[in-house]
């Protein structure tokens, strides 16, 4: 969308508009008082309403919920799929491995707030812990701890390839590229006019990164309401996404908040505020809804400042398994919703 800030100056136009607006203020007040006079319970004509966006057109719902279960303990934040099909949940100061049916298998304690994880093909777990990365073997033995080079690091997303680990750092507003030994080898996504990279806008710490089979990174740029595609060397290849509450757009201040991928390259986008999970083709084409706002009422309430906990906690995360099922974590209820495609994939 294009920006037009011509009204910044107190121009003659604004002066004239102001005259009209003064009338509008008087009219608005009269309208409010009339509604109030109609009695308690009369609708506030200036109530802020997004109710039309809280209901999903059933024709757009491509998935059905088959099961849900709760993650034990406080503060469930992110989900990762383990090679055998079980889930690794970043929660509190630990990572909890759970079966797809919801039984706890084991826990891995970490030295700080567990935020995110990525798992290599050989089972090595890279765990994003507050401002650093902790590395564990498939059996859960601690192998290493890497400090990220950033001063105010907040590791909010991780992706791992054959030779590299990518760490989304919401504090530093960039993606760190590391080799598998932990050596930082690059910085991706920083504002760079010469390379046509606009930089990440993060009103809240929700920078995520996914690595697809085509070798490109998918990174959300929530303040710009976009998904951006980068080469591991940091070139911005393309981007898509538009701001708005409509179902095919990204709502609120900063969405999508988290990403996941289906095997065919479809991008799964998670939103907060209006909590919903949607599908977009590689080039951004809207493909449908996995779960709409009505599936997460507590999350929507908390996001609006009316539910339990702080609004900062209200987000969703998702991960897809090899069968095409999508697991969605609601960070307010700490529930995992297991979604199956209505049509076999």
């Amino acid at each position: 969308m294009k920006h037009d800030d011509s009204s910044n100056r107190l121009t003659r136009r604004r002066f004239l508009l102001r005259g009209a607006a003064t009338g509008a203020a008087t009219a608005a007040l009269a309208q409010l008082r009339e509604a109030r006079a109609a009695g308690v319970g009369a609708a506030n004509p200036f109530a802020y309403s997004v109710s039309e966006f809280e209901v999903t057109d059933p024709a757009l719902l491509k998935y059905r919920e088959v099961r849900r279960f709760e993650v034990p303990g406080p503060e469930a934040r992110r989900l990762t799929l383990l090679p055998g099909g079980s889930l690794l949940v970043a929660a509190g100061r630990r990572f909890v491995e759970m079966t797809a049916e919801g039984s706890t298998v084991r826990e891995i304690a970490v030295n700080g707030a567990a935020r995110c994880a990525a798992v290599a093909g050989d089972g090595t777990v890279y765990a994003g812990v507050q401002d650093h990365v902790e590395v564990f073997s498939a059996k859960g033995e601690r192998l290493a701890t890497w400090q990220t080079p950033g001063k105010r690091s907040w590791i909010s997303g991780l992706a791992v390839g054959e030779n590299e680990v990518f760490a989304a750092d919401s504090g530093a507003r960039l993606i760190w590229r590391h080799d598998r030994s932990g050596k930082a080898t690059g910085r991706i996504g920083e504002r760079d006019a010469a390379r046509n990279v606009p930089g990440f806008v993060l009103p809240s710490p929700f920078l995520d990164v996914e690595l697809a089979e085509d070798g490109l990174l998918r990174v959300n740029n929530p303040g710009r309401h976009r998904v951006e595609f980068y080469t591991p060397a940091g070139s911005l290849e393309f981007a898509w996404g538009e701001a708005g509450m409509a179902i095919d757009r990204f709502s609120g201040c900063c969405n999508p908040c988290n990403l996941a991928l289906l095997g065919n390259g479809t991008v799964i986008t998670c939103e907060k505020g209006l909590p919903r999970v949607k599908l977009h083709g590689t080039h951004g084409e809207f493909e449908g809804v996995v779960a709409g706002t009505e599936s997460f009422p507590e999350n929507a309430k908390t996001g609006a400042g009316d539910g339990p906990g702080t609004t900062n906690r209200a987000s969703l995360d998702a991960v897809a398994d090899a069968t095409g099922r999508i697991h969605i974590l609601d960070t307010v209820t700490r529930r995992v919703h297991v979604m199956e495609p209505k049509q076999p994939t």
Partner: protein
Amino acid sequence: MATESTHSNAVSRRDFLRGGVRVAGMTGAGLLAGVLTHKAGATTHVWQIDPAKCVRCGLCATECVLEQSAVKCVHSHDICGYCELCTGYFEPQPNALNTGAENQLCPTAAIIRKFIEDPYYEYVIDEDLCIGCGKCVEGCNRFGNGSLYLQVRQDRCVNCNECSIARVCAGDAFRRVPVDHAYLLKTKPH
């Protein structure tokens, strides 16, 4: 009496004016003179809104004894998320992210959006136009950082013994604060 919100600080007139550099809508001419005229003398306490308790019910606009409410929207630049799609400024589904009247949420066009540099915008409230309806406050709270909120402007409020808004306030958000700490400014998002 309500306990003080952990997310808002009672501040003095001086802090308030100093904060006016950062808190849009708080720079109205004659503010200090207004406060002093109204609040000097025996007055020790004035009415103020705890932003953490306000539920944006809309009654601030209509229940004040003044023709135009003493309650106005203020904007805290310090906690603003600088959202491109500012949900306090734009309709939920704007045609475009520009300042066209049809895209604006405020029913009186009282919010002036000023581009600073990518991605930063500054918001200034035209207090003569703001009727204190709280619509922008709800939009900002619902999807943003809550940097738009309502305050009783002490240069306008006549400090009724019993504030007629406080009597009906849906959030029980009104309370008496010392006149030398007459504002409850937010210091943290939400």
